[in-house]
């Protein structure tokens, strides 16, 4: 049942990422719902599901990405693992904490991704980080925090757990 619910949420996220995200871009900045999913999924489910989810989602994203195959998988695996390890100490239902956690996790993901992608060009890395990663992390975190708050208020549980 849990697996089915996770797969359903992932499918919805993939559909939204593929269909809606480019339409709600602000000044070229798009939210990255797949990273947000990995962060939230790992946070709620723990390290092993987080690693598997991160790797799977990353690999799926790699198929449609210009970078080398496996780069997104690696970045999301690492983020999923770190989030799962660090997240169990964090209060999961507080919206402020959640926002900060999302921003940090997404920045870590982008740091890994752009670190490999720019292949040691520090200037390019800083530019990508400031002009792409930071705005995208903020936009995604705001959007996802609001979305989760709405969904969880309606269902009266956290999205991927049975916690109240």
């Amino acid at each position, binding site marked *: 049942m849990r697996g089915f619910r996770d797969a359903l949420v992932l499918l919805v996220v993939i559909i939204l990422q593929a*269909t809606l995200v480019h339409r709600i871009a602000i000044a070229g900045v798009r939210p990255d719902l797949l990273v947000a999913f990995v962060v939230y999924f790992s946070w709620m489910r723990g390290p092993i599901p987080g690693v598997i989810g991160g790797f799977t989602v990353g690999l799926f994203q790699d198929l449609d990405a210009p970078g080398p195959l496996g780069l997104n998988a690696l970045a999301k695996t690492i983020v999923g693992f770190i989030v799962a390890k660090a997240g169990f100490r964090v209060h999961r239902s507080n919206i402020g904490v959640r926002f900060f956690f999302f921003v940090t996790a997404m920045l870590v993901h982008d740091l890994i991704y752009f670190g490999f992608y720019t292949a040691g060009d520090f200037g390019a890395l800083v530019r990508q980080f400031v002009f792409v990663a930071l705005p995208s992390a903020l936009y995604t975190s705001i959007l996802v925090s609001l979305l989760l708050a709405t969904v969880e208020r309606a269902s009266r549980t956290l999205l991927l757990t049975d916690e109240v």
Partner: protein
Amino acid sequence: MFRLLFARRGDWAAFTLACTLSLTLMLLGRGQQARAAWFVQHAVLAPVDAVVGWVDAGIGVYWENQKLKRRLAQVQIEVDETRSERVENARLRRLLELSQENPFDLAAVRVIARSLDRLGGSLTIDKGSKEGILPNSAVITPEGLVGRIERVSPHEARALTLLHRDCAVAVRVGRSRVDGVLEWEFGENPVLSLLYVSSQEDVKAGDWVFTSGLGGVFPEGVRVGTVSRVGIAENGLMKDVQVKPAVNFRGLEEVLVYLPAGAGRGPRMLPLESTEPDSAAPPATAARPSPAPSESAGAGDGR
């Protein structure tokens, strides 16, 4: 050893495995990467791709529909504006044609207010003495005579229409050349009456009535209306003639006002937008006849 590793440190083992797999994929050659990607895309993810494509098409149609609705609303507004401008354009074109046909100086003016009475006995126009409008100047439209200017201030003027008792007009029946005075008469059925027409004169219903130019206020030959009814007055000496005006006084938006003789400027028309006399107007044709509209004939023209 792996079993022990997974039992004790399952999370770390999974993490290490996933990282190793990812790095292995990254280190593959371009051709091998492409083959692996092709396999995963077509074998595993084809159904997901189909669902995504289907949803994307649906959302795209919705988005496009919203955009087209907005565009349609904008276009509708533009069409309405264009329609209104076309009507105004036709009206102004007719005014312009009339002024070009007419040998006298004319000012095109807008009607900015109407009298409060139901009949429309007076109008306020948007040009005054600064633009050369003088009291007793004739006011016309392409349809015919409207009335005369009664009072002038620097930037506006009040005109009395034929439906005002103080606006009598010396007129002539076009067919038989019979002269008379047209005057608004109150009564149970207020009408425009053609007065001072002998019972022996030849006037018939349907005859056109024009200004005669007698009295000096109105230029000669301006259409006023048609004879609608002819009878004999109670005293038996005069005819009782009623005239239907050519102008619809309720629908007036722009009118033309005769200006004083052009002093060498020739025929021209002040543009509606301009408040200054048109100094760039073509000279020439100053020799054309002028009706001397500046003559003051008081309220009772021809009486």
